[in-house]
């Protein structure tokens, strides 16, 4: 197990490097730069801006000094578009927000999704089953950029129950709509996986044995069926994480939470190289880490898997 983890971490470093270099090069190839303005800047000002941000260096040098800044000082450099702030500050402001509502959405999605899936499996082919499946597919296909404005309309304008946007770490009323908008489609997928996996487990031999032994149904489910049924759900969690980060753009736009998803898209559109790289690296590193954790969890639960 330990060797496995080490191997995975060893692969992680070249992955990150690849990601960094690739994004860097791609970004610099896009037309327009961070200082392309409506009014063409005088050449001296452009020269100074370029010098200040190191853009006049050859590309490989820029990458090298950038990487060195990260490794030596954990400094991602100044933002090109927000001259008052550094990338570290921007990420420190935005990331906790995304992480908070992302985690909450995630937990909500897992809890509700697993619940729905188990219910559907137990009352298989009954009304509850069809209802649960219908709800989950329906929730999955409704894009969150349709759901978000509907939520604001309903909860802020019609019923005046929740604030229409903004963010507060203390006040939960700011969390509710983002969590609903973000978590619903994942809740749906999780429900579907849980249901089919649960069905498979419920039909297996050891469950039949437990029932034959006269064990009460609820214990059969909770003690024997649930754990193996959850395995596929766990392996799904990795991709969920990445999707949530990208899906959070919609949340940031409609609910003005100031999260990291919008920061990334904006930085791509504004050619803010530093912020783009910073966010890409952050998300890339987290993805790798998350996938590793998920794989370990999976291996721990399922004794058949050996690394």
């Amino acid at each position, binding site marked *: 197990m330990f060797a496995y983890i080490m191997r995975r971490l060893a*692969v*992680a470093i*070249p*992955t990150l490097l*690849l*990601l960094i270099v*690739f*994004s860097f090069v*791609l*970004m610099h*190839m*896009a037309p327009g730069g961070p200082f392309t303005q409506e009014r063409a800047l005088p050449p001296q000002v452009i020269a100074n801006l370029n010098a200040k941000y190191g853009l006049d260096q050859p590309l490989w040098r820029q990458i090298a000094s950038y990487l060195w800044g990260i490794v030596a000082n954990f400094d991602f450099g100044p933002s090109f578009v927000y001259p008052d702030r550094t990338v570290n500050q921007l990420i420190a402001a935005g990331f906790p927000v995304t992480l908070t509502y992302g985690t909450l959405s995630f937990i909500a999605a897992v809890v509700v999704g697993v619940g729905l899936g188990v219910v559907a499996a137990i009352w*298989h082919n009954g009304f509850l089953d069809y209802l649960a499946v219908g709800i989950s*597919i*329906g929730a*999955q*296909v*409704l*894009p969150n*950029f*349709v759901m978000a*404005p*509907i939520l604001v*309309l309903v909860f802020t*304008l019609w019923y005046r129950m929740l604030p229409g946007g903004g963010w507060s770490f203390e006040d939960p009323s700011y969390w509710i709509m983002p969590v609903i908008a973000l978590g619903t*489609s994942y809740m749906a*997928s999780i429900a*579907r*996986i849980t249901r*089919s*996996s649960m*069905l*498979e487990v419920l*039909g297996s031999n050891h469950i039949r044995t437990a029932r034959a032994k006269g064990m009460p149904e609820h214990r059969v489910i909770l003690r024997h069926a649930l754990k193996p049924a959850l*395995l*596929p759900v766990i*392996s*799904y969690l990795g*991709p969920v994480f*990445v*999707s949530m*980060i*990208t*899906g959070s*753009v*919609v949340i940031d736009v409609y609910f003005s939470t100031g999260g990291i998803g919008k920061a*990334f*898209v904006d930085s*791509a*559109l504004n050619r803010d190289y530093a912020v783009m790289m910073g*966010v*890409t690296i952050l*998300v*890339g590193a987290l*993805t*790798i880490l998350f*996938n590793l954790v998920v794989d370990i969890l999976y291996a721990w639960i399922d004794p058949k898997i050996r690394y």
Partner: protein
Amino acid sequence: MVIEERKMQSLAARLSQDEVRGRSPWADARKRFVRNKAAMAGLIILILVGLFALLGEYVAAWSNDELDFTVMGQVAQMGMPSLQNGHYFGTDDLGRDLFARTVQGTQISLMVGIVGAAIAVVVGTLYGATAGYVGGRTDQFMMRAVDILMSIPYMFVLILLLVMFGRSMSMLFLGIGLISWLDMSRIVRGQTLSLKNREFIEAARAIGVPAWKIVLRHVVPNLLGVVAVYATLLVPLMILTESFISFLGLGVQEPLTSWGALISEGAGTMNYGTLWQLAFPLFFFVITLFGFFFVGDGLRDALDPKDR
């Protein structure tokens, strides 16, 4: 959105147990599929939507980029769906016929979904089959590469690509297709590994058939079941991705449109008394995705009846 790996693997395992002997497994599968009500319903929906996309433009009274100046400016009152002025689905904010635009959006979205899935399938299958068949170091290396690529947040790369190369249809196809071949390659590789040691493959090797021919002629056809199911489940994913890209403003160029673009526009004007602008594209979007899900699930259940 998920295509459950375990179920795919189980399907792959089952399919590799039997060789393709005559028609009987396929005939069985077809019978099971037909009996699955949800799957048949999905199939019918898809056929109908397909017909809508193909023939809709002949039914439309307006073209998809013509502005109706009598409606423009008073869309909430004049732009409602009506049979008289030919705007069956109503008009958008500029007075363009929503029926024609929905037809055209359906064409684009379906195309993106299908082409994207096709690219994913072709690339993923060839890659996975090759890795699985060749085995050894090459296989390790190829799969490592897949692992690495899977950790890259693809959406970021896609946005970068679109920003970089500008917004063209081919870039859209390429970008979307390249996202999803990774999973496919893994599954295909798994199945190839088990197929590899079957007698008919060994026989072919003994005769001296070159490796690439074996892969193409003998391995790939046996993968068709898995691939078909996966592809069907991939199309809705592609369509969802495309709708997100349109929401960001990076999708297809005017005057072309897609479901994502139409829905995005419609969602914006939701509260202004023009609900049809959202309702019609959303309706087609939702039922098509439903259709693909049901058909995909049905196919899988038909080919691997152990699960229900």
